[in-house]
């Protein structure tokens, strides 16, 4: 690993913020802040604001703070101070410039990873506070351009990447056809009412990584699972609206997803290797719709692989040889406690596994999560430089392969590996399983 010298902060110009802020009036700012703080927040907000004793103990939790030479501005409480703190101090009378800056803080300097909630003695949830800031910024129309565009895609197409309805189905059929080269009678059953499992993915899979759908099709067929994939919108389980503070849209997206599962009469939703999508279905969107938990048994791919391996539905021909390490995605480790199952799966399929530290619930976020990577190119350098600790942590393992069962983590880690010149490649678990498992009729 080399340490790049150009650590200076680049000028960020984000049209979404600039033009959005230019349209603001003082009246709108004050009314909106009042509406959100008085109308939408409650006990949590009040307790967090009043309980924080400014002790700074949360600082060490945050990879951004740790990576930016422990600049206190970037500590969790520091970020609250620069946003909510100022708003309260100035009694909501902040200007457009402030809103723009607050949007940058909340949307690009915090991944909503909740690591700090495990470090604050009071359990103050800074991620929640940052979401309130994002909510205010959303209501004021001052959200970073690229993630806003993603939210627009969600709104228009119910998927994250402007994938048109025919493109989605076509991709599934194309992957099915390709996979038949390996397993001749393989199927990706579309809209199969009454299947046991509905498999859902995020839109970047059909758009950029269709081979992951291929891998899953091979796994499903080998394991003899009664499964289906939906042809209709709602197939995409991702959710950037959850991260822009557009809660109404977030609810709408999850409604489409759950409605689809209900129409297909499945008993379980298995979600691909994505962390934020899991969070939105498992923990966020369901609440926005009035569900305490997900209405259907909803599991992340890690748990699915775990079950398949445990029950012997898939068997390993020969373990993967290269040395591997694991980056725990926040949303499935700290968000769902799947870290031990992930390790079990990896040890089943890989010969040489090395831990990175800290890990499990205490992992450092990849710095792509929480919508930060979706804020796009203007923030890329900042995103990698503000996660130096991750680079150091990963480099120390000396592994050849970095496994991480999350799309955002992949994007984030790929950028980090490239920027810090770390010789390591990222992989999803399904890619390795597909390489090492016993297949029914090997071509």
């Amino acid at each position: 690993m080399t340490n790049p010298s150009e650590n200076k902060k680049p000028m960020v110009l984000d049209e979404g913020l600039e033009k959005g802020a230019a349209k603001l009036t003082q009246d709108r700012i004050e009314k909106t802040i009042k509406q959100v703080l008085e109308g939408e927040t409650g006990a949590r907000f009040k307790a967090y604001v009043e309980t924080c004793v400014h002790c700074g103990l949360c600082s060490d939790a945050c990879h951004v703070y740790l990576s930016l030479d422990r600049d206190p501005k970037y500590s969790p409480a520091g970020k609250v101070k620069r946003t909510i703190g100022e708003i309260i101090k100035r009694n909501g009378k902040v200007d457009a410039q402030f809103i723009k800056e607050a949007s940058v803080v909340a949307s690009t300097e915090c991944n909503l990873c909740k690591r700090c909630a495990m470090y604050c003695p009071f359990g103050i949830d800074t991620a929640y506070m940052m979401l309130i800031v994002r909510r205010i910024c959303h209501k004021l129309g001052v959200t970073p351009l690229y993630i806003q565009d993603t939210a627009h895609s969600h709104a228009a197409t119910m998927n994250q990447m402007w994938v048109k309805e025919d493109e989605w189905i076509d991709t599934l059929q194309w992957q099915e056809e390709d996979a038949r080269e390996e397993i001749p009678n393989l199927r990706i059953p579309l809209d199969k009412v009454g299947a046991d499992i509905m498999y859902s993915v995020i839109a970047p899979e059909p758009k950029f990584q269709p081979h992951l759908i291929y891998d899953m099709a091979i796994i499903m067929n080998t394991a003899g699972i009664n499964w289906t994939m939906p042809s209709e919108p709602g197939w995409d389980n991702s959710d950037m609206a959850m991260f822009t503070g557009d809660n109404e849209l977030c609810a709408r997206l999850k409604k489409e997803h759950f409605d689809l599962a209900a129409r297909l009469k499945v008993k379980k939703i298995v979600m691909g290797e994505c962390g934020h999508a899991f969070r939105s279905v498992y923990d966020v969107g369901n609440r926005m719709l009035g569900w305490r938990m997900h209405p259907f048994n909803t599991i992340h791919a890690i748990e699915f692989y775990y079950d398949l391996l445990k029950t012997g539905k898939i068997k390993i021909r020969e373990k993967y040889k290269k040395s591997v390490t694991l980056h725990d995605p926040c949303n499935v480790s700290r968000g769902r406690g799947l870290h031990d199952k992930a390790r079990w799966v990896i040890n089943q399929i890989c010969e040489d596994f090395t831990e990175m530290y800290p890990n499990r619930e205490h992992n450092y976020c990849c710095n792509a999560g929480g919508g930060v990577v979706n804020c796009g190119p203007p923030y890329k350098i900042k995103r990698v430089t503000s996660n130096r600790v991750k680079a150091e942590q990963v480099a120390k393992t000396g592994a050849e392969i970095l496994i991480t069962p999350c799309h955002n983590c992949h994007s984030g880690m790929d950028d980090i590996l490239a920027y810090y010149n770390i010789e390591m490649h990222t992989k999803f678990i399904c890619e390795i399983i597909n390489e090492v498992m016993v297949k029914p009729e090997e071509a």
Partner: protein
Amino acid sequence: MNNFNTLYNLVTGPLVWLTFLVFIGGSVYKIRQLFSLVNNKEKFIYSYMSLKFSLRSLAHWVVPFATVNWRKHPVMTVMTFLFHFCLVLMPLFLTAHVTIIHEAWGIRWVTLPDGIADTMTMIVIAGALFFLIRRFTLREVRYLSVASDYVLVAIVAAPFVTGFLAYHHILNYQLMLILHILSGEIMLMAIPFTRFSHMLYAIFTRTYIGSEFGSVRHARDW
């Protein structure tokens, strides 16, 4: 002398009542306010609260070095626990305090030997000093600190400093005694209305996050 008496009568008479009224009334008000917010706006919180995971979380955070972050900051951890321990227990079990209560209401409970109480007082003072120095010297803490944080350190230290001086008859005893009582009253009255309210809210924020981590996230929160 007369002035001292008037003052003494004031701080040990009506002000005591006022203090308890403000402290208890204020605390009840603050907690009720929090619950009314939950009831009106975040009722869903109840459905996630879990006794088991609340206790699991509390159990880790009330034990020194039982959490990763306590272990990361050993000096801070030792000082935090000692400070809060002495801050709460010493005044409750100080012979002088218990005697006053016994004289007033006829109830009494065990008391601390004076020597130990004296040491505990010094610990609180040292703790306050430590927090103050930490605020000045640690970059991440200084950045967060606002004027009221320093004032609060002073408010919490004052009754202990004056009590210590009075006990050891340093400076004017009577003055110190009055200042001691007065500053103690100020501290109590400040609890519901300043950051001291973490004394009231900590249990709720902690058990809530503990429940979320335990029953929904299936993860540790320490």
